[in-house]
């Protein structure tokens, strides 16, 4: 995969390294701003409230049941 990407990047080596850096930066930013915040509520270690997934349901119910 890395080899395939490298072959398809245009320009001489320095330009390709620059493009690699840009791709990595954009990917990491996307992960931190979109993917990880989306994933966090779905992971099993952020539940601190009582009521089964209370933080999802309480807004509809008004009060925890």
């Amino acid at each position: 995969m890395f080899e395939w990407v490298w072959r398809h990047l245009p320009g001489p080596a320095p330009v390709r390294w620059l493009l690699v850096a840009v791709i990595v930066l954009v990917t990491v930013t996307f992960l931190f701003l979109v993917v990880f915040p989306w994933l966090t509520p779905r992971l099993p270690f952020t539940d601190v409230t009582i009521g089964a997934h209370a933080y999802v349901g309480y807004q509809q119910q008004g009060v925890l049941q």
Partner: protein
Amino acid sequence: MTARGARTTARWVGDILITLGVVVALLLVYQLWWTNVQAANAAASTRADLVAAWEPPATATPAASATPEPSASAAPEASTATEEPAAPQPVTAPAVGKPFALMYIPRLRDSVWGSPVVEGVGLDELAKGVGHYPGTAMPGQIGNFATAAHRATHGELFKDFDRLKKGDRVVVETKYGWYVYELDVDKIIAPTDTWVIDPVPGQPDAEPTEALITLTTCNPRWASTERWAWWGYLVEERTRDQGPPAELASKGG
């Protein structure tokens, strides 16, 4: 499949696995570091907004000086004995996501010290500070002032929850004064044990006669298979005029 084709396939699979490994490592960086950075910033700005909204203090002198807090060390011990028992004016619950109080726990002073208490216990609210279960009592009121906070990641205010002991104090500051609770009982419970935030915990139909506080968080720290709750009862309330309780002086420098 040719040997060359097999090698290419193996290389692709290997590259993808390496990439996934890097993504998991980044997820750890995000969870263990970045969420705490974000939560600390959110808590600081939430606290600043709240303190700004409290100015000028409801009954205090005109805002002539730059000191926002009443003087703390004006012999609170001597004054309490003779004064009429005074209670701060109660506060009402704001909209979900809005702060209304600050929490201080001397035992956990490295994390819970002037931490904003926000209405609601969703992830968005808990990302700003301590969450207040909507519908439960407000600070100092008869009933159960029920709260939750993260124990790991997202500010991890209750990261040292296991260090709490019977007799520890929890101070809740509102616009009009301070409420001091003393922790009494704790229990590890199931995530579905909603009775812990009842006005009288465990007695859903009982009429409350005492002002309680409940702290909840996850257990074990890095998982959410159980919950941990601490209960305390109100032992002291102080108006702005009376000044902050002695517990708040224990921060040191």
